[in-house]
């Protein structure tokens, strides 16, 4: 049977499609450089393009290796019998994954521009993308938890310099968003009073920060949006931990 081209592909096929596009981003500049060499442009002139492409390739390789490590971490976390009492924190190699994406794209684009002889324009392009990449972890400060601990009473989190507890009794429901390997969680709360009472340091500034975070995170009432791999935790594992906490069936706890 001939497949319908408009039919959405399976997740495996989609991953392959994404991978092919990803390769194209990297292969196109290499092809451009080889073509320029073939046409007779001096290697000396193409040196900046090669340098940019080298950076893009290093970024891409890092991302692929880190992606494999992330999947392995996810599998290991899913096998954990109990998540209680463990402080989950984003490892540096996972933070670098986010940085590597703009660096890789910027490098590839800069390589294309530099192949045409505009190495300066390539510098500007690459520096802008690199700056955005380096700022990526800063965008999460105050918006996503630095660390998470699943406790017997609730979910304890640290955002900026404040920590707070989301008691299991205040969690109304959780809504997973996104594909299985990249799940974000929308934690809908019944009310925010108990959460705000638990904020440490106990001052109006810290409470206001958490209040804003809770209100801004959800459109359907009070809630928290936990992005995929928040605090280095696989979304499905975190979902399981929260569900166990809500139901009171916590393995490894007496």
């Amino acid at each position, binding site marked *: 049977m001939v497949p319908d081209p408009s039919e959405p592909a399976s997740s495996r096929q989609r991953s392959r499609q994404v991978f092919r596009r990803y390769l194209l981003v990297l292969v196109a500049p290499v092809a451009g450089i080889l073509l320029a060499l073939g046409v007779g442009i001096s290697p000396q002139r193409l040196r900046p393009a090669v340098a940019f492409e080298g950076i893009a390739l290093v970024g891409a390789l890092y991302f692929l290796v880190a992606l494999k490590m992330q999947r392995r971490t996810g599998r290991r976390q899913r096998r954990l019998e109990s998540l209680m009492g463990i402080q989950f924190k984003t490892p540096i190699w996972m933070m670098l994954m986010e940085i590597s994406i703009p660096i890789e794209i910027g490098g590839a684009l800069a390589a294309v521009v530099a192949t045409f002889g505009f190495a*300066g*324009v390539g510098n500007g*392009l690459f*520096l802008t993308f690199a700056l955005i990449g380096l700022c990526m972890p800063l965008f999460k400060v105050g918006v996503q938890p630095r660390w998470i601990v699943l406790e017997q009473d609730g979910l304890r989190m640290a955002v900026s310099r404040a920590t707070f507890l989301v008691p299991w009794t205040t969690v109304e429901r959780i809504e997973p968003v996104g594909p299985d390997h990249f799940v974000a969680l929308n934690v809908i709360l019944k009310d925010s009073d108990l959460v705000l009472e638990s904020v440490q340091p106990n001052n109006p500034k810290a409470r206001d920060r958490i209040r804003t975070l809770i209100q801004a995170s959800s459109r359907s009432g009070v809630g928290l949006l936990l992005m995929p791999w928040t605090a280095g935790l696989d979304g499905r594992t975190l979902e399981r931990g929260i569900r166990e906490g809500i139901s009171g069936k916590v393995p490894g706890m007496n």
Partner: protein
Amino acid sequence: MSGKVRWETTCLLANLGLLGVVASAFHFGLGAHRIRTAAIFLILGTGWSLYGELLFHACKLRAGRQRERPVPHDVRLRVPLWIEAGGLITMLSTSAPVAALAAGLGSGQVGFGVLLAVAALTTTTGYLVARYSFRSLAFETGGLRLYLAGGSNLLVPWKSIASVDLEGQAEWKLVQLTLFETRSALASFEPNTPRARQRATLALHGDDGSPGRILLTQWAAGIDAPVLASAIKAEMAGSGTERLN
């Protein structure tokens, strides 16, 4: 309105201020070539900032006019290009001083690269947002017809809409439509291919049958968000021909 200076005004002042500095440096004969390239970026930046300022006032006037007139029916309403371009132009006016700084330090090409990167990123982000959101609509007797990029569309019956809320801050408002269910809207989807349907499901924030949510950004379909919210509420109440307040 609070006494906070708007971003467009800040950009205009920054570009004009730096242009003044560059003009003084030029007057005293400092690095004529570098200064000239920096000045070109700052003149462009000033032009873009002026566009942003004019856009703000033009949008205010447009919103005022729309408040006094009924929203047209059975006509596809789109975002005018001059409003659509606002996002890109604001980003360019913001990065023009950085480009000028690079030019002042000796590389006009680096400055151009910065502007190119900002333009590429803004355009890509805008394209992705437009692809998965409704940016064009038509008020029809049966409901609200919403269009995705590429012309695919669906009809949300008035009776499917549970609530209309206005969200966001003073300068950037969103209209949020909460639906009782998405089945009837998805059933009307044209062209009904699985891929297009998947995009519609994403834009509706809900699977077949589940309660959905539609977010219409500020100036979606070229209508000011509060006016759009009032018009939808009026249609829901069955008084769509009344003047909107």
